[in-house]
Each structure stands twice: as structure tokens, then as C-alpha cells.
């Protein structure tokens, strides 16, 4: 075991995967020689050579299409889209092509591509470096959608994604790259050094795609979160001394309905959350499915904690970010209903 932050653990995942399988290659804007603007691919070119970790032109559609073509030839491409906000030029290649190659060819061709992309706010990134566009991709049959919340999960899930026979869009909450974040921007930065999920094996391991984790057991209310908000939800429960059960979803497609339903059937109350804008977000899908599964166990309407239906503002970033107080308000709402 080693102490790793999330950048290091993702780098370690790529390193292990590339070492194990010569078909695994990594590329993206600034992701070759320089090792990526967040350094996730640092050292890979030096270790594995120019043809296995290289720079790509600033064209997200072309990057994705190149990965599709390579995967059709049997490679396992890991394409980096520099910010999730930049993924939209690639949307046709992801939605109309990548996701459907297996289906439309009836399995004659498959394209197991991983698209990695840093997402989320809390880093003063303004509207074009803060988005959480995961819900768009959960609407697309044929791709898996993953968002880890810590270094240990990030590594195990990225290796699982690379080895998955299906294409994966892999969101990396960039506010968590260097440390957990409980939603209070006034506190000193924390690192992963003291966090148990900052303990990461140096060797190869995978975590199951589609499996959530109960990260805090409790009896009064279930909070479903993923990415940065896992830590915010934990902080909110701690601060208010609420006996909340907190689920880290990790995989959005396919999400782990069994773990969620078991918890909500136990607690009878539920808060679902996302950093993205409220309307048609992934929390809405969770709320709908939970009420289908657990209607007779529910003691109160499900509450959503989300970003606002606005672009991610720069100066008023913390007014947008769904911090602990918004969780506390929602939890009170469901507990008092």
C-alpha cells in the first residue's frame, strides 16, 4: 500500500493497465509529453514510449473518433478530454457512434474505449471548467458512466473501465484530485494523506462496475451521493449529528439499485444529490426509481440537493455549489415531514 492522491492513483491505474496489456494506449490534449494539465498521465510517455502515450490535436470529436477506430482494431484506448466542459464537441462521436457500435453491428465490431474527463466545480473554474455533465451520458444506451470519490476507488474503477468490454465515460471530480472536500471553502485544504481511501495498492486491482458502497451506516435517512458530494454529505451528517446512511454510488450506469433500495427500505427517508443543475439531472432518475422500488417504505417525499438551474458562476461559485447547509436543509425536510 502507498499513500496516493487521486491524480497519483489514476496515474497508477494507467501505468498498471499499460504494463499488463500492450493494447492499452493513452492520449489527449496536453496528455502526452507534458502528462496532462492535471498530471494524470505524467511519466507514461517516458515509460511506455511515444506511441503509447501521446499528445492529440485540440479536437475532442477527432480524439473520440480516433479512439473508436483504434478500438475497432483491437486496441484499448484511454482518451482524455481535458475538461468535462469540453466534451460536447465529441458528443456525436460518443452518442451516435461509440455507444452503438456493438449494437448496430450486432456484435461484429466492439469499441471498448474509455473517455476520461475531469468534472465538477469548487476550483474557481468558471462556467467552462466546472460542469458535471454526467446526466447527458446516462441517457445514452451502450455506455457505462462512472464517477469515483476517492483515490482507492478511482484506481480500481479506472482499471475495471479499461478492461470492460463496453465503452465507459469516466468522470474525475477534480476538486477531489488533491484531497477530500467537505464543501467548506474557508477551511485549510485537506490532503488524502490521512484518509483511509488514500491508501492505495501499487499493483493491479479492480472494483466492480455497478456496485455502490455504504460509506456511513445509519438508520434515519439515506443520502445518495457520488463524486465530490459524498464528502459534503458526510460532513453534513457529522455536523448535525444525524443518523444518516450515506451511499457512494460510484457507478451511474448501471447504478446499484439494490444497495439503494435496501437502505431506503430500512430508513424510510431519502435525499438524492448531484452537483449538476437540478432539472433532468441524475438525481431525478434516482428519485423516480427509488419511489418505484420503495414507495410503501417511504415516510416522506424524496428531497433533491443539486446545483441551481444556472450556468456555474465564477465569482459566486459557493452560492451555486451544493454545500453542507443545503444537505442539512434537505435532511431536516425529510426528517420532519
Amino acid at each position, binding site marked *: 500500500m502507498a499513500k496516493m492522491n487521486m491524480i497519483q492513483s489514476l496515474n497508477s491505474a494507467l501505468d498498471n493497465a499499460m504494463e499488463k496489456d500492450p493494447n492499452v494506449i493513452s492520449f489527449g490534449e496536453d496528455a502526452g509529453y507534458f502528462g496532462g494539465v492535471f498530471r494524470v498521465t505524467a511519466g507514461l510517455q517516458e515509460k511506455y514510449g511515444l506511441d503509447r502515450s501521446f499528445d492529440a490535436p485540440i479536437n475532442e470529436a477527432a480524439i473520440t*473518433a480516433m479512439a473508436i477506430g483504434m478500438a475497432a482494431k483491437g486496441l484499448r484506448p484511454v482518451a482524455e478530454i481535458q475538461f468535462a466542459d469540453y466534451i460536447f464537441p465529441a458528443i456525436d462521436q460518443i452518442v451516435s457512434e461509440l455507444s452503438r457500435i456493438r449494437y448496430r453491428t450486432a456484435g461484429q465490431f466492439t469499441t471498448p474505449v474509455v473517455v476520461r474527463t475531469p468534472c465538477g466545480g469548487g476550483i474557481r473554474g468558471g462556467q467552462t471548467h466546472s460542469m458535471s455533465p454526467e446526466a447527458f451520458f446516462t441517457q445514452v444506451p451502450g455506455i457505462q458512466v462512472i464517477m469515483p470519490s476517492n483515490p482507492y476507488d478511482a484506481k480500481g474503477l479506472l482499471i475495471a473501465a479499461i478492461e470492460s468490454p463496453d465503452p465507459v465515460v469516466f468522470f474525475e471530480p477534480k476538486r477531489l484530485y488533491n484531497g477530500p472536500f467537505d464543501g467548506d471553502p474557508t477551511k485549510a485544504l485537506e490532503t488524502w494523506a490521512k484518509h483511509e481511501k488514500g491508501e492505495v495498492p501499487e499493483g493491479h486491482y479492480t472494483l466492480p462496475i455497478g456496485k455502490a458502497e455504504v460509506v456511513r451506516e445509519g438508520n434515519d435517512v439515506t443520502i445518495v451521493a457520488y463524486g465530490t458530494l459524498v464528502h459534503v454529505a458526510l460532513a453534513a451528517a457529522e455536523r448535525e449529528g444525524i443518523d444518516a446512511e450515506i451511499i457512494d454510488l460510484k457507478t451511474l450506469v448501471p447504478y446499484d439499485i439494490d444497495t439503494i433500495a435496501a437502505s431506503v427500505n430500512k430508513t424510510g427517508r431519502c435525499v438524492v444529490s448531484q452537483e449538476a443543475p437540478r432539472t433532468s439531472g441524475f438525481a431525478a432518475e434516482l428519485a423516480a426509481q427509488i419511489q418505484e422500488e420503495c414507495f410503501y417504505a417511504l415516510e416522506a417525499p424524496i428531497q433533491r440537493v443539486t446545483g441551481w438551474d444556472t450556468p456555474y458562476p465564477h465569482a459566486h461559485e459557493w452560492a451555486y455549489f451544493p454545500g453542507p447547509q443545503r444537505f442539512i436543509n434537505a435532511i431536516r425536510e425529510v426528517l420532519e415531514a
Partner: protein
Amino acid sequence: MTQTDPRFHVPAPHARPGDTPDFSHIEVPPAGEAKRPEPTVAAHETRDLATGLVRVLDHNHQAVGEWDPKLDAEPLREGLKHMVLTRVYDDRMLKLQRQGKMSFYMKSTGEEAVAVAAAMALDKGDMVFPSYRQQGILFARGRDIVDMMCHCISNSRDNLKGRQLPVHYTWAEGNFFSISGNLTTQFPQAVGYAMACQYKGESQIAASWIGEGSTAEGDFHGALVLASTYKAPVILNVVNNQWAISTFQGIAGGQAETFALKGQGYGLATLRIDGNDFLAVYAATQWAAERARAGLGATVIESYTYRADAHSTSDDPSGYRPKGEEAKWPLGDPIERLKQHLIGLGEWDEERHAALEKELDELVIKSYKQAESFGTLHDGPLSPVESIFEDVYAEPDWRLRRQRQDLGV
């Protein structure tokens, strides 16, 4: 001084319905005029070839000049047969569509040489990323006609399980990638595929085809940037058939420069060829394939041709271009030209040609009867309903398993 015109400009074609077809603005250089450099030439030295027109068959149907691939009579007859089969198949499928036997069809009439000659010049192992008007590749590569029809009528033997519109073929065994209805997406994918061939140290190359209208897509730029950056062993074909449904090639910027010339901006080799000349298409593809296999990168080939029929069965060209325009196309008909060439060589005659047409028509009719025995879209049997939940992922997850139950299958 250039004449100035400050008005907002929307280009228009030379003739519209009711007008006399007019192609007098098209310059047709004599066959044999274009020089053929070695395939190892520097890309910028192919600039002239992007603005000229590589032609081999002259007005007397004789093969002339440096680009003559000097094929034996046997491959020429084979090429003729694939082209005739393509046309006969298209004609029969159109009729069947009109009888309600399939939901949709797209012919390649007038463009048969573009697909057939290119496929014959490539190795059978080279991966092709076609658009929807290169069915000729399938015939040239020997795909079973019954299988093709089973796909088009979406029956129980459709190798795509009824998931794709007719003519959106896939044939992995024949190195024929899946055709997308979204235009140009396959262009940069072909480049990625070609890069992977090099990565694996294989001599296989990739080739892709789009229409001239589709060069307006961002993926065209993306493909050329990738091909140029990584020197990928790929052939990027632009089939300039003059029409993108109802919009003429000027709406894709075609009145400014040739489509082939765009490749020069990316430092790629460029050829503009007579797409209705079987020998020119063959020679250009052979040249580009040799260049790609030598590690010298991609060639952009503009095949200058004419879409002699409607865009698809959902289209009626009499609404936007003069009737009979196809008969006036200055580059003639690809089948007629190769046929006359073979007759001139003493290797073919009208009787044999008529017999070939008859034989292939009978083959197509017989094949359709066989295909129909496996069902039709209208009357079934189709692929099993539960197959709609298969191949979304390698294994269906809980959502798909439940939804299948909800559908009751």
C-alpha cells in the same frame, strides 16, 4: 481588379427544374494528360493533381497516359461484372421498395466505379469505412447477395438483427465497417483504425468514403488533421457526385476550390479523378494504397462523378434539378465506358454484355426469392423481439433485464 459585389451571397446551381441541363461550365481535360508521379512523391508536389482531373479512358474508350493501370482483360471483365451487378441489384431493390418490400433504399447509379474499382485496387484485408453509396465494395469483395438482401428487408437472417436502416451494411468478415447514418463520423474513425494498424506493425491500411456535401462537417477537418499529424496509412475519398440530397456542391464551398485541394492545406497528397472512369479510380486507389503502405501517409482523393438517380427512395430530384440531367453528364456512364473499352480491346461484345445483364438480373431475382423465404419486414419473421435488448452491452444489466420482462419477452 476583381469585381466587387457587396450583396449577401447564396450560391445556386447552373440549372434548375425546367431549365435545359447545362454542364458547359465543367472543364474536362483530355484523358492521359495528367502526370503520374511516383507514389513516394512529396505531398505538395501533388497540388496540380488536386485541381486537374486524372482520366485514363478517352472519348474513344481507349486507355491512355501514365495513369493507365494496364490491367489484364480478366480483372476488367470482373470489374464490369461487379458494376453491372451493383446496378442491376440497385434497380431491382428500388422496385421492391416501391412494392413495399422494404422501408427504404439508396441506389448508387452512376457511381458504381467509385466503389468497385477502389475495392478491387485495395487488398481484401484493408478495412473500409464507407458511406451509404458504396455497396459496390460488397459485390467486389464477394459478399453473398442473399445476405445483403436479408439485411435490407430486415428479416430473421439480417446479420444486423433489424437494427439498421436498409443499405447500412456491416460485414466484419469482409473488413467492411458499420455504416452510420450520421455523416462523416467514419472519416476520423478510419484514421484511428489506420493508426492502430501501424501501431500493431501490420501492413493493413484503411479507406473511407464521404460525399462532397459531408466535407462541410467538422469531422472532415478532424480526419484530415489526424491523418496529417500522425501520417496515418489511410485513403480519404470524397465522392463529389454534385448533389447532397437537394443541395448542389456549391453549398459545401465547392465553387471556391476543388474538394481535393483542401487536402493540400493539411500537407496530404491529393488526387482529383474522373470518378466515372474505372481505370482512373483503380489507378488512383492503387497509387494511394502504395503510398500509405510505404508509410508516407494519407491521400485525399476527390472522385468527380454524378449522382444519376435520387438521393434515396424518400427523395424526388425533379424538385430541384432538371430532368434528364444525368444523360448530359460530360463524364458519361462508368459501365458504358468500361464496356466500350473492353469491346475496343476485342475482349467483350454486346451479346455477352446482354447475356451478363440477363444472368445477373436472374441471379438477383432468384436471390430475392431466397431472401424472402427468411421473412420480410412487413410479414416477418424478424429477429426475435428480445434481441432488441441484446448487444447494448456485452451483458445486459438489471435495467435491460427488467425492461425485457416489462415487454413480456
